[in-house]
């Protein structure tokens, strides 16, 4: 693992070109079978993510952002209807790997995951330190002492006091448990870490502390983050790029510098206008109506029913238009 991080440092730190993309997702579809019909949780999503970039996936509940993460990780429930498309991580087409190879070669080694509310999923009868070190023992065959030494190093990085490793989960506060989970995701030095709402259940100060740690980790280790969240203000703490999902589809993927000032897609604009700000006076807006059902979603643009700029063309499915200054958005208004 040490070799990897050295070679990775030699690559350019700027906007990567195509060959440097760590993750390439194209035409990803994930549909679930339910008693009411087929739910199109992720529908034709394509994006690329460069090394050491962090991507914030934003969207409201039910828009498919967690399903997107689960599809990349291949942590899927049994009621799959369709799972197709291409996911290329570091040159390896993940869709071609069978379950066993995926488990051995990808999970933990290249890809790790901090699930939602994971801090409540720590094993209550094992010491936290063992749980942090376990991936090394299981996946890399390290012996206990060595694995524990590494666990201590990682604990220092995430801001978890080293003596906490000898405690049990119930002796730790929520923030400390979340740090333990992040340490666990980091210990195998994966290239990509997917964080699903890492701070949503935590207090404001704890949240700020964890965000600080995540930023520090990003500077010190060569990691790429995918941060899945509905909290737009918090997402701006980590994001280099922003991907907005609506009703199972990607609607905008833009560099963060542009997105937080001038989002391109009408949905993203409305979403930004609904975020309360502390320091700046603005009139808040809300989006009337509800997202469509993902069982038989409407044809054409899925946001059309709630969109103030709707016109005839919205009945057709909008392709991804590229935007000035990088990024894409799927909206007919951008057609020229």
């Amino acid at each position, binding site marked *: 693992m040490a070799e990897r991080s050295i070679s990775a440092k030699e690559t350019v730190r700027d906007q990567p070109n195509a060959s440097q993309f760590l993750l390439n997702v194209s035409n990803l579809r994930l549909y679930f079978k339910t008693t009411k019909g087929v739910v199109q949780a992720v529908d034709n999503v394509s994006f690329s993510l460069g090394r050491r970039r*962090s991507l914030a996936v934003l969207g409201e509940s039910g828009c498919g952002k967690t399903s997107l993460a689960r599809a990349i990780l291949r942590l899927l429930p049994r009621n799959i209807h369709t799972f197709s498309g291409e996911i290329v991580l570091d040159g390896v087409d993940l869709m071609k790997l069978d379950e066993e190879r995926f488990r051995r070669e990808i999970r933990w080694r290249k890809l790790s995951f901090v699930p939602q509310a994971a801090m409540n999923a720590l094993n209550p009868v094992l010491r936290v330190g063992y749980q942090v070190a376990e991936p090394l023992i299981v996946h890399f065959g390290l012996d206990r002492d060595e694995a524990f030494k590494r666990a201590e190093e990682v604990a220092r990085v995430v801001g978890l006091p080293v003596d906490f490793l000898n405690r049990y989960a119930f002796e730790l506060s929520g*923030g400390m448990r979340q740090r333990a989970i992040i340490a666990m995701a980091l210990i195998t030095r994966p290239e990509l870490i997917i964080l699903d709402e890492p701070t949503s259940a935590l207090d404001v100060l704890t949240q700020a502390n964890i965000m600080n740690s995540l*930023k520090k980790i990003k500077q010190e280790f060569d990691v790429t983050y995918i941060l899945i969240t509905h909290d*737009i*203000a918090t997402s*701006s703490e980590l*994001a280099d790029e922003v991907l907005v999902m609506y009703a199972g589809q990607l609607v905008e993927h833009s560099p963060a510098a542009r997105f937080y000032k001038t989002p391109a897609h009408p949905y993203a604009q409305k979403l930004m206008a609904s975020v*309360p*700000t502390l320091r*700046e006076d603005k009139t808040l807006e809300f989006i009337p109506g509800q997202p469509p059902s993902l069982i038989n979603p409407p044809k054409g643009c899925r946001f059309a029913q709630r969109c103030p700029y709707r016109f005839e063309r919205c009945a057709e499915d909008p392709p991804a238009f590229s935007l000035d200054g990088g990024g894409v958005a799927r909206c007919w208004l951008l057609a020229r």
Partner: protein
Amino acid sequence: MPENNVLLSVKDLHTWYELRKFGFIRVGYVRALDGVSFDLRYGEALTIVGESGSGKTTLLKTILGLVPPTKGVLEFAGKKVDASNLLWLRRQVGYVQQDPYGALPPFMNVRRILLEPMVINKVGRPAEREARIREVLEEVRLVPVDDFLPKFPHMLSGGQQQRLVIARALVLNPKLIVADEPVSMLDASVRVEILDLMRRVQKAHNLGVIYITHDLSTVRYFSERVFIMYAAKVVEKADVRGIVHNPLHPYARALLSAIPDPDHENAHRFKDVPPGEPPSLVKPPEGCRFHPRCTQKILGLCDREVPPEFEPSPNHFVSCWLYR
């Protein structure tokens, strides 16, 4: 209405929970609320901001009469609240819960949910009740009313469920609404809608509102006065502008600087947040409860004496020795 215009008066309220070992040996108390005093006028909206464990929910439960106060006095509309008039109190206080789906009985439809408070409190005749149900549903914009009446909670979206919870809180024409994080479970786009609704209802009926939240950024869209709680005490009381633009207590400052506004620059900055966690409420620290985490503490004072309330500028109260 009493001449001083005070709807709810809280004086030196303490709520301690007993800690027991093996179910009967008393080993101490959790001081969930330790000396809180304030007055709420008719038609006034007050926000209480605090982290989990700061005692904000206990304050609310004590006001609702769900937990008896250990010490202190609670007066509602000029009358002292005790065990004998709890029913009278609860008829005039509406409660908006945090998790709308959890707060609505899944086996009752909208009509039944709104009828229930009136049945329990023996209010009105059937026709009047029906009319009142329609009235509140229109008020919270669950229209057309006839479509919503037979629906069950699971058939409603999150925002609609929260509207129904607000309708239920309003159905008895209360004078005070207490809302415990009413929007924290909702999506950003719906949040504003619900806050707007609560604000409109408050103005229309001149309701007193106590809004409890951990999210300071929604506060300015909702109320005039803000209290900040830390470790079972109110540390700062001020109007919204005072808190947002000129926070005085070191904890309030940390809290404000920790809240991000959506801005790309955040990604390149580290936040200046105090390390550590709020103290245990079983054995709170001597003196100021924030002193173990405070960067500006005065040794020999902050760790010995409990700071009283100072008023460095008019109507801006802070419990911190820096302002003595």
